[in-house]
């Protein structure tokens, strides 16, 4: 079992819960942001020291939910502040961006890091499309074409042009190219049936985050595996990453208190505006393409906001407790899903930095060694 330390970089000083979109930035305090970023970057660096196999950051726009509009900037820092861990960019949201810019910046990260990049091509969540004024109906088409174009930019030995539906370039020859050949491993979201099929079709790793119940994840993994087989390949456990919220503390009560407070703030305070934008997108567009996915996502969003910490632990959808409890929880999900990478998000909402650091230490000293057999 490999472990990834994922950081969303949430804003910890948001004053009140709200449902407005866009979220007003009048309460943002630039002076505090400097310290916030340093805390978060230090935590990532410490995760590398604690033996995490991967470190990860992602991309979100116009929201206190995540202070990472460009994950590649953080990626560049991670190349310098980490030594061993592979660097997972679980952005870029390629349908919003110039795919060649993504290809170039990922190639830079791969070269600078000595070939440690794992390249995420994300579709993003609905509010990103509102933020960047991109039609949500185009999200799948753009993602599909951008994936093909980026791979071509990484691998073509000769200059080329591209005439597509969304992207047109007459002369492409990127400098640098990635260090890994033929290109860095690609990871795509596989949380919904449609995205699981797409990841399989692309020969990419599957990333499943925001777990609402064990069976739904198992179902997505099953679809991913079956569809990959139909496409002529069979994923290994190392092709499947599942992401969980996590707090490890010296006592069960302390872990519960930390994660409950963090999730409550994260979901109910920071997540309000995002839910508003999501409702608008789901209602007015074909973002989710089919009813199967729409139902899946809307159900997940509704459920997410209401579940108590006790229910989350009971249902196995978070990793929370003492080291021994978390070890058992990881064994349970591994048995259920057969995945090879567990991604943990320890900075949930405004869980204090000392508590995050303690989680990392307990992971290093107890959890990881005890799970060496997985």
């Amino acid at each position, binding site marked *: 079992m490999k472990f990834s330390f994922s950081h969303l970089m949430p804003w910890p000083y948001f004053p009140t819960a709200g449902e407005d979109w866009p979220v007003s930035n009048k309460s943002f305090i630039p002076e505090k942001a400097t310290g916030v970023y340093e805390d978060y970057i230090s935590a990532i660096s410490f995760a590398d020291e604690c033996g995490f196999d991967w470190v990860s950051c992602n991309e979100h726009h116009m929201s206190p939910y995540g202070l990472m509009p460009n994950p590649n900037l953080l990626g560049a820092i991670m190349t310098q502040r980490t030594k061993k861990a592979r660097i997972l960019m679980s952005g870029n949201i390629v349908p919003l961006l110039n795919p060649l810019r993504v290809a170039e910046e990922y190639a830079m990260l791969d070269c600078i890091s000595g070939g440690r990049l794992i390249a995420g091509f994300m579709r993003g969540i609905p509010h990103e499309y509102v933020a960047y004024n991109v039609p949500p109906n185009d999200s799948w088409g753009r993602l599909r*074409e951008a994936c*093909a*174009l980026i791979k*071509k930019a990484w691998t*073509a*030995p*000769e*200059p*080329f*042009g*591209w*005439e*597509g*539906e969304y*992207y*047109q370039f*007459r*002369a492409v020859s990127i400098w640098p190219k990635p260090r890994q050949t033929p290109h860095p491993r690609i990871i795509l979201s596989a949380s919904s049936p449609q995205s699981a099929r797409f990841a399989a079709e692309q020969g990419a790793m599957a990333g499943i985050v925001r777990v609402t119940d064990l069976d739904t994840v198992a179902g997505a993994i099953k679809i991913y595996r079956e569809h990959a087989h139909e496409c002529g390949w069979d994923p290994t456990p190392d092709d499947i990453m599942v992401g969980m919220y996590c707090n490890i503390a010296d006592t069960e009560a302390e872990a519960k208190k930390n994660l409950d407070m963090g999730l409550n703030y994260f979901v109910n305070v920071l997540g309000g505006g995002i839910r508003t934008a999501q409702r608008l997108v789901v209602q007015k567009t074909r973002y989710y393409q089919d009813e199967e996915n729409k139902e899946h996502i809307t159900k997940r969003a509704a459920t997410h906001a209401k579940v108590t910490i006790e229910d989350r632990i009971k249902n196995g959808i978070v990793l929370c407790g003492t080291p021994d409890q978390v070890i058992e929880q990881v064994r349970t999900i591994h048995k259920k899903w057969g995945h090879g990478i567990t991604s943990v998000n320890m900075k949930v909402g405004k869980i204090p930095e000392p508590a995050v650091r303690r989680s990392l230490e307990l992971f290093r000293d107890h959890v990881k060694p005890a799970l060496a057999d997985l």
Partner: protein
Amino acid sequence: MDFMLQSADLSTGKLAYYVAGSGRPLLYLHSAGGVRLAKTLAELAKVNQVFIPVLPGFDGTEPHKGVATMRDIGKLAAEFIGKVIGGEAIDVIGHSFGGRAAAWLAVDHPKLVGELILECPSGFRPPTVPKPSDDPKIVRQQMFAHPERLPPDEKSPQQAAANRKVAASYHKDVDYESELVERLSDIQSLTLVLAGTSDGRVPVEADYLLSERIPDCHLIFVYDAAHNIEVDQPDRFLTVVRSFLDRGKAFIVNWGEHAVAGIDASTAASGSSTSRETLALDSRDHVHF
């Protein structure tokens, strides 16, 4: 734009050809499927005078004595340019089988070819790349990403099979024409290679080989197109080809819609390459470091 069927007396026999439009002449060499008067060609004929010879033996025409190889077709095309079109250098498009013939025309008769467009050309599959399947179902997938876009007036299966047989009599089932490959560096024309991202017949390695060996070559991938780009993505084909024919090397610059309209109009009106030359000079005037 309607094409008219006409006939020319060449040294090897009568050659049928279609022609439409006026303006700068454009020669189109068809694929092993024979002539398909696609909408793309009618669109090109709104600006160019488009000539489409029915290569000997195809579509029920008589073979020509002494025209037996791909290189011979190139020679035949050169004679056609001299006797029918007027002998000036003209722009040439060759699709698949026709692309291979167009390449021979360009290496053996460089003075007759202005700009060269090789659309999914056959004959350049490196020996290390496996041959594609011959299963008819799979071949259809390799040929068309969007078979539903095929026009209803396609040829009969018998005619299609006969055309494939004629094509084989020329290319002799040689997938890698080494003599031609060796001479690609002799091509003097500004060249555009068009490749479908889903082309199952011509491998991407062949596209790169052409791009590497032809001295002044641009390779463009047309997304979501297989071997028949003109069927799968006619608008994308026209956008790139029109721009390449009108602007030459400067086609890599995005001029914006208004600028494009102005340039198109002047090029079409003059029927010459003046606009292309002017653009090239302008670009030299604006180099900054």
